[in-house]
């Protein structure tokens, strides 16, 4: 019953969204105040309905209602209550519900805080929000209904992946979505402004705090994800440039750019068209992230169960949202006139530079993430773009920006005085030079310590640069201390926000530089009583306590004590857990931190006699990285409490300057018709649209391939048309010949790699005699299998092979380029590999592909 109420509420919410998306918009176009006034009540109603629906889903999860499929798939009665609650969004359907809930929450926020907004602007913005809501609710209802029932209901559920049963990951999605979806505010208001053809400081002033909210949440969400990956995955790292991570980084970079350009738009009434563009791009990148994670077009370590149909729907949404808004942008943006004049060296200039770099960075991450798709689409083979690429291109891009981050805030608006700003940074410069020299002296002269020195130096530069800026504002050491304190107290909070935000980044940079350069690692089998020495710590392994019972797991706990110079520093107890439902192993990491560096201990596989594989990392300055992220968020929050954000929603001044060339038209015509009078086109504003169309085309093509069944991770062999590698493999058993390369000559041969442990091989096996029947010589290679197992397997299922070679260690497999058994290679009379099949051969495949090609080669 509850689930049906949830579904019903969601359907009603869809209808309300339809009303919200249309009536206020039409009202605004016709200047009909009554129709426009429907925006707030419908946003409120929509929120209530989605909240009811979400509440019903949560109820089903908390009460473990296993007649609901979604609960069955991701819950179990033995799960602690916290993870029953957070389990709601630990699956695709539930996370989309959370997405939608947050979207309508922002809609509600507009209706509450936006009471004083110009009615037409608010009506239009809420209508856009309504459209997005309509799209996502429809998406849930059509492709991802979380309220589907199962009949008969199972006694218990499948449980939740233990990796997700963690506080870090439990709260990572809500913050991430608060960020992603929060950018819908800037987006909706950008579209509303484009429709109105008017962007003024009042608009920017409304958009800026909401961008700030979204930015804070996204920063926290990304940092939490990284932190989670650091302390649960046991790899000692925190960022892997995985496509899913990149999906969250792109909107962050674009959102950070938006945050800064909206400052210029608000304070100086300029860069407006650019700010609008960034608002569109940021939200589009959020949608793109949602798409990439769920569609299956990219392979990633952590993504949702992929479904091309869902992918197609989100892509369609992305096409409408982004394509539509870019069309609108291309038409309307040329009419938005830039306001204030500024010199290259000025605060505006600095912020513009920040924007250039950040958008280039976002574009670079997009390029690197999607490049493998492009190359594949153009049939140029397969490439991988991984961490080494991103490190190489991102570092030189970000470092100059960080260097200039200390200078920009010291420049005045309109026209800055660079020599003066630099002379104020004397102290910061000296501290930076000192840091670099000290680093090189302490760590020795090498590329690594030079890079570390530059990273640390820039962190110090930015930190003291920000401090200098603050000191200048409070006139520190210029008058009395009391005067400075007085000024410090009355300094706008947004100024503190900036200082904290920039200092936070300085800490992050120091953390990255330190951990990249000086991470040390220890990996050994340890027996109880053994001591490992890692970065000055003595870590003694006392032993493993078995069978410790947790709420829904049994764990083996390793006991370690860390000492330094003979003094006890910490007890460390990493665990090896076995969860009951689902049956999955999980290791938990033990971390000792002294706030400068982390000692990070992972308990690996048991190694006999109470011993265990132990992996210990010493990660210098990693705590600074996460601390820095928190400081950045704090900066955002402090800025958000600034007085000028709190004194109610901005009002438009009466004497607002229309941005149109024809002021008379704006004054007299109904608001919506204002711009249509004089469309001017500008090639620059059409470029993004063209870029998006190409991008969307590639994604559609990719989805189509996934839908057709071409697995994106099928790797073409480079061995085709090359002679078979040299090998000489011993026979599996007496009476069966072995095989060596020379014997492949003279007759068309199919070489089949198999193993008794390989499940698809079992599926393939009955089809293999068809190969022999077609007159093709079939040769088997027993791949990384114990000979007795392989023999028993063939005794049981029959032996279709003319000869079998034993490749005990997989060396021949590596030479052939085998990456997953079963694999089959068709080799011609001259011993040249002509074709490769990965995965089991089926009768159809043998009839349609193997035999015809073999016959052709035999001629």
């Amino acid at each position: 019953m509850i689930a049906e109420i949830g579904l019903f509420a969601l359907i009603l919410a869809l209808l309300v969204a339809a009303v919200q998306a249309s009536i206020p918009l039409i009202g605004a176009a016709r200047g009909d105040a009554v129709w426009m006034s429907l925006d707030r009540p419908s946003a409120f109603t929509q929120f209530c309905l989605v909240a009811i629906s979400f509440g019903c889903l949560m109820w089903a999860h908390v009460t473990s209602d296993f007649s609901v499929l979604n609960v069955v798939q991701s819950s179990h009665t033995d799960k602690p209550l916290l993870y029953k609650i957070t389990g709601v969004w630990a699956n695709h359907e539930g996370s989309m519900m959370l997405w939608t809930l947050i979207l309508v929450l922002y809609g509600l926020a507009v209706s509450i805080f936006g009471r004083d907004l110009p009615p037409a602007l608010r009506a239009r913005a809420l209508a856009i929000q309504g459209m997005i809501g309509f799209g996502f609710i429809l998406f849930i209802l059509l492709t991802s209904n979380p309220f589907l029932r199962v009949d008969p209901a199972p006694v218990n559920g499948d449980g939740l992946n233990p990796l997700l049963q963690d506080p870090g990951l439990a709260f990572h999605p809500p913050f991430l979505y608060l960020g992603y979806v929060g950018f819908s505010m800037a987006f909706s208001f950008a579209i509303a402004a484009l429709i109105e053809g008017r962007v003024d400081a009042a608009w920017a002033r409304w958009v800026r705090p909401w961008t700030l909210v979204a930015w804070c949440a996204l920063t926290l969400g990304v940092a939490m994800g990284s932190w989670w990956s650091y302390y649960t995955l046991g790899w000692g790292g925190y960022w892997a440039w995985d496509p899913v991570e990149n999906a969250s980084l792109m909107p962050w970079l674009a959102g950070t750019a938006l945050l800064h350009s909206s400052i210029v738009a608000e304070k100086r009434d300029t860069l407006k068209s650019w700010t609008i563009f960034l608002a569109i791009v940021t939200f589009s990148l959020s949608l793109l992230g949602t798409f990439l994670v769920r569609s299956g077009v990219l392979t990633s370590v952590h993504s949702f169960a992929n479904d091309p149909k869902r992918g197609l729907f989100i892509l369609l949404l992305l096409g409408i949202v982004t394509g539509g808004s870019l069309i609108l942008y291309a038409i309307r943006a040329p009419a938005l006139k830039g306001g204030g004049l500024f010199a290259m060296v000025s605060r505006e200039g600095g912020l513009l530079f920040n924007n250039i770099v950040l958008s280039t960075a976002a574009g670079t991450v997009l390029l690197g993430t999607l490049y493998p798709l492009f190359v594949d689409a153009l049939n140029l083979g397969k490439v991988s773009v991984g961490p080494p690429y991103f490190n190489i291109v991102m570092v030189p891009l970000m470092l100059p920006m960080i260097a200039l981050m200390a200078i920009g805030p010291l420049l005045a608006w309109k026209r800055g005085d660079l020599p003066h700003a630099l002379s104020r940074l004397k102290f910061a410069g000296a501290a930076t030079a000192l840091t670099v020299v000290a680093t090189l002296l302490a760590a020795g002269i090498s590329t690594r310590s030079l890079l570390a020195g530059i990273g640390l130096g820039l962190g110090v530069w930015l930190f003291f640069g920000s401090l200098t800026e603050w000191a200048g504002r409070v006139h520190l050491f210029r008058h009395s201390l009391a005067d400075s304190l007085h000024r410090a107290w009355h300094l706008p909070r947004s100024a503190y926000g900036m200082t904290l935000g920039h200092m936070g980044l300085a800490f992050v940079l120091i953390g990255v530089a330190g951990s990249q350069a000086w991470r040390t690692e220890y990996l050994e089998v340890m027996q109880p009583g053994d001591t490992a020495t890692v970065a000055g710590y003595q870590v003694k392994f006392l032993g493993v306590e078995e069978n410790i019972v947790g709420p829904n797991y049994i764990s083996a706990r390793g006991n370690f004590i860390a000492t330094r110079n003979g003094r006890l520093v910490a007890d460390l107890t990493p665990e090896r857990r076995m969860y009951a439902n689902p049956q999955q192993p999980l290791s938990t990491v033990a971390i000792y931190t002294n706030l400068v560096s982390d000692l990070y201990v992972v308990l690996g596989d048991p190694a006999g006699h109470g011993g265990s594989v132990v992996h210990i990392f010493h990660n210098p300055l990693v705590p600074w990285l996460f601390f820095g992220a928190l400081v950045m968020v704090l900066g955002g929050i402090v800025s958000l409490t600034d007085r000028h954000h709190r004194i109610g929603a901005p009002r438009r001044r009466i004497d607002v300057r229309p941005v149109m060339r024809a002021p008379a038209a704006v004054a007299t015509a109904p608001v919506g018709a204002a711009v249509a009078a004089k469309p001017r086109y500008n090639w620059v504003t059409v470029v993004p649209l063209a870029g998006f169309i190409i991008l969307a085309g590639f994604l559609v093509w990719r989805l189509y391939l996934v839908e057709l069944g071409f697995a994106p991770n099928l790797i073409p062999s480079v061995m085709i048309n090359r002679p078979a590698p040299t090998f000489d493999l011993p026979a599996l058993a007496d009476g069966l010949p072995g095989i060596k390369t020379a014997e492949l000559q003279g007759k068309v041969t199919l070489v089949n790699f198999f193993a008794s442990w390989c499940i698809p091989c079992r599926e393939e096996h009955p089809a293999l005699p068809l190969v022999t029947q077609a007159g093709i010589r079939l040769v088997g290679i027993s791949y990384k299998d114990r000979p007795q197992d392989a023999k028993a397997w063939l005794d049981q299922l029959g032996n279709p092979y003319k000869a079998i070679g034993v490749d005990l260690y997989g060396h021949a497999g590596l030479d052939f380029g085998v990456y997953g058994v079963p694999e089959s290679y068709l080799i011609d009379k001259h011993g040249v590999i002509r074709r490769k099949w990965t995965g089991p051969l089926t009768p159809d495949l043998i009839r349609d592909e193997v035999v015809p090609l073999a016959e052709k080669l035999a001629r």
Partner: protein
Amino acid sequence: MRLRAKISIILASAALVVTLWSGTAWAIRPDEILADPKLEHRARAIGTELRCLVCQNESIDDSNADLAHDLRVLVRQRLVAGDSDEQVKQYIVARYGNYVLLKPPFMAETYLLWFGPALLLLCAAGVAAIYIRRVSQTAQTAPLTDDESRRLSALLGDAGRKKEDS
């Protein structure tokens, strides 16, 4: 075709499940480590640049898949045999193709990838430059009216320059 592809998807998803389920995949095992720390250091550096083929975007150093183990051992064998870092990578590329390189080689197919960031930067800077020029041009085309000139000289005359807040 369809069936095979479906099976490959099942295989791929099985691989995904394995990578996720094994959770804490510190991939390298103690028995793989070379006695010579210099060689081992080189092996680790190479390992982070090679992709594990059966995994989803993991290097062979980060993966606990069986194939990744084999490749790590192979890397070390080649290093011990005296290969240079480049030779080791080429040895594996010869068998598995450029796909294994997490840092794609610089070639015609990847020009856009490697030049892309610089192109983006140039475009962004170009648009910004055009913008600044246009703004200053439009500003120049509007001369002061007589009234404005009078007010300006009056303002400059008495109060001096008032400092812009923040």
